[in-house]
């Protein structure tokens, strides 16, 4: 089986914990893709309820979001490699929702498993748990491993 494991990674403690948990539980060595999702500034503002229509330096801000996502993905991929995965970094833009973006990337790479933290900075946790509660049967279609940030002792 050469399908990769897809790690949703946002650099938070929760997503780091997910990497460790996966090493304990999931068969490896295996191929892995470490995904960091970035959200365009205009969408972030709209979600935040901003009435600002034009952000003068929107492009610049997006560039910095992209750069940050790339750094996070690279850091996550390095962590996954240290833990024995053959991992590559990947970033993707969330045009609709983070959950949908993860789903789409999972499809594209034909992931055998999606791994995410239970509580990240909010986006992943909300996206995945949100999709679990509301749209899972339609959207997640692949096995999802949700790792707790603070595992029970």
């Amino acid at each position: 089986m050469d399908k990769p494991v897809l790690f949703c990674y946002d650099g938070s403690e929760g997503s780091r914990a997910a990497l460790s948990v996966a090493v304990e539980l999931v068969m490896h060595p295996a191929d892995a893709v470490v995904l960091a999702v970035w959200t365009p500034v205009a969408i972030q503002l709209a979600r935040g309820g901003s009435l600002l229509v034009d952000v003068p330096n929107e492009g610049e801000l997006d560039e910095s979001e992209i750069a940050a996502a790339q750094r996070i993905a690279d850091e996550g991929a390095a962590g996954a490699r240290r833990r024995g995965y053959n991992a590559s970094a990947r970033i993707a833009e969330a045009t609709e929702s983070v959950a949908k973006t993860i789903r789409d990337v999972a499809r594209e790479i034909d992931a055998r498993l999606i791994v995410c933290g239970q509580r990240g900075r909010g986006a992943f946790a909300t996206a995945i748990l949100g999709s679990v509660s509301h749209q899972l049967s339609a959207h997640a279609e692949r096995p999802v491993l949700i790792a707790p940030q603070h595992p029970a002792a």
Partner: protein
Amino acid sequence: MNMTTRFPNRVRGPILFAYDGSDLAKLAIDEAGQQLAAGRTALVLTVWQPFDVGFVPAAEVRFDAAQVSDVQRAAEQTAAEGASLAQAAGFDARGTVIEAAPTWKGIVDVADEHDASLIVLGSHGRTGLAGVLIGSVAEAVAAHSRRSVLIAHRPDSQDRTSRPVSLETGNDSP
């Protein structure tokens, strides 16, 4: 002191399969067998309630849902069936039952009691009520447990959604 030494038993706790006898619960066991490191111990749990039952009886089992002892016996048979499937999938498995309501709480409690390293379940806990209860048990377990949760999905669910229209692709498109 790092996390590994602080939680020395985390890795060793059994994998807990929440097993209600549904096709999806069976699929979840298969899925776990393929995804997880081999040779793990596993506990196959069937949660039951009188009247409401809460699981799919093993084939040819007839019982009166109002008779508590009958429901429990049927649940034990369902759990045993799940344990056989888990054995076949490569786990060192045994079945167990608990009377609990709501179902998710029984799963979370048994996981804590046995210090489970992982809870495995289908994205909905029941057959026959799909569309009403989809995701409810899995959602509640994931939200309430401080343990890792692996959720399996129906393989055909992909067909029900349209393909993504816009996707930021890399440079590896065919």
